[in-house]
């Protein structure tokens, strides 16, 4: 069983993942929940999705990070953006800054460690989806 890491009332919490009725990219309709492979080309219509998940094939595969940035900045998707698949606790801070807002942790990951690793850094050099200003201009 997978565990869902998401914010509730501004507090990060771990809950059991509820089954979601995912729709594949090619049969998307307004309001449905999308599960995307990391190599898809983002489409404007997806801004109206109720939930978007990006499925990471491996810890080392950074394509989903660029895809998330595009969904937020180019498509303008403002809803819950979830990382699923090979989600690793040491990458959470990268994922967050690319615009992910929830994480489905694989069963073997320790949720207590994940909760501690949401923000190992209090600030970063470069701007991001979350904070456009680089350190140099802050």
């Amino acid at each position: 069983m997978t565990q869902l890491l998401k914010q509730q009332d501004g507090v990060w919490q771990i809950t059991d993942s509820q089954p979601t009725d995912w729709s594949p990219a090619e049969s998307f309709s307004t309001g449905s929940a999308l599960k995307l492979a990391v190599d898809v080309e983002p489409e404007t219509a997806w801004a109206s999705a109720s939930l978007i998940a990006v499925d990471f094939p491996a810890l080392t595969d950074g394509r989903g990070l660029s895809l998330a940035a595009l969904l937020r900045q180019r498509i303008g998707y403002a809803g819950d953006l979830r990382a699923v698949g090979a989600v690793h606790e040491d990458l959470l801070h990268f994922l967050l800054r690319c615009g992910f807002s929830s994480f489905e942790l694989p069963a073997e990951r320790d949720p207590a460690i994940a909760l501690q690793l949401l923000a190992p850094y209090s600030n970063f050099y470069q701007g991001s989806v979350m904070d456009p200003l680089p350190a140099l201009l802050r």
Partner: protein
Amino acid sequence: MYQYNDFDRQFVNERVAHYRDQTQRYLNGALSEDEFLQLRLRNGLYIQRLAPMLRVAIPYGTLSSKQLRALASIANTYDRGYGHLSTRQNMQFNWPEIADVPDILEQLATVNMHAIQTSGSCIRNVTTDHFAGAAADESIDPRPYCELIRQWSTLHPEFEWLPRKFKIAVSGGKVDRAAIDVHDIGLRVYEVAQQPVFDVIVGGGLGRTPVIGTTIREGLPAHHLLTYLHAILRVYNRYGRRDNKYKARIKILLRALGAEAFTQRVDEEWQQVIKESEPLADAAITKMQGFFQIPTLPAIDDPDFSLDEQRLTHPEFSRWIERNVSAHQCEGYANIILSTKAPGIPPGDVSAEQMQAVADWADQFGCSEVRISHEQNFALPHIRQQDLFQLWQLASDHDLATANAGLITDVICCPGGDFCSLANAKSIPIAEAIQRRLDDADFLHDLGDLDLNISGCMNACGHHHVGHIGILGVDKKGQEFYQISLGGHAGHSGESASLGQIIGPSVSRDQVPTVIDNIINIHLSLRHQDESFLACFRRVGIQPFKVSLRSDAHDTAA
């Protein structure tokens, strides 16, 4: 030099804490071997043939005397009293314990240093001309842009998990001392109408598939440097191959798409990125340039000083001036190379005592600044000409005054099979055998500029493809053999970059010095007056050199 502020210090300390936590989780079993591999690599820790190797970042090859003393202390405490200067201007320690690495990083952090992104599939340490901000032939100081790129690329949220490693080099000189044609991205900065602009070269590189990079944009305004890099990296991160590590570098993507289609894809992405993000503010560029003003140079107290008499009475000093000393931006000063390539010492290896001595000289003579060149030497900018003789004498006492910068004995060499688990063959003994054979200083100086680069395997850490003479270690049925190529060039001394051509079948280790001898003799028999090896090779081609592999080559050439 760039000066850390509270944020920089906090950031580096938090990186140490995060890495300490990663190490502890690995040691208590919460992280698997494969997971920790990816995490430790992105913080500079390799597991090598004999022991771990920690690569410490020296951003664009510049460090302070204080930082160099800290490296000397680490070499004494955690290594065996020495360190290794790498071809990416970093310093490597070969014997740390995995459990000690967080403590080493903590010690580095006290002098504003780290090992962030010195390995792994991410953006590596940006490199530049080792005499940036000091060389007489410089158009624009590249260091403010190097630091902007360093900051932008450090734990970049989108680009820490690329298909493969990614190397950026910047040159601001009329002469390219940063080998920008053989990097994933090479940047040439120069002025147009008093405004800094960049030419952007993409997809160069060495390794298994050596390629000279393609210029995909000329005259890019400085305030768009980072948006354009973002576009290139995003295209690479999304479309670069991830199924085969030997085909994962950006050069393969550029070749697969074709330069035109690749450039178009980058430009389309860039047009979008520009709309979505702020350009680099002039205030940011100006602020960064403020860190890299020329330091207050020691006053010249003898305006009539001339090196002539010292050179006349000390021919060895004169040779050192000729080879290792180059022109400074300010009259009466010079930039010097402290060669690590003394006979019998592996190229780039420096002892803790040498590091301390270099730090002392930097304080005494050179505004406390030290540089590391990609040729694996120490360099000191900002030296008064009137101090050169004293500095030469001091350097001679520490085996750092070999007058061979740019000569064949100034070998670029990877650690090779003695240390590296990737190597097919040893490289250091080859360098040593050639250096021992070529010990006649007059002969070497007459021979002139000749880059000899040695790699122990296809990964090409010794840059053999761009050596005027390149030597590559290969494995033939379990035996170490060496493939020799000629005519490569990294792009310095005003000549265009080129890749070496293989002269013929590989030879055994014993034969290498003889073949090198033969190559030199053939060159001497063909050259016009003082023609350099590269110029001669470019004129006559590879054909006359093929005979160097034959056992009777010497007779034929004579």
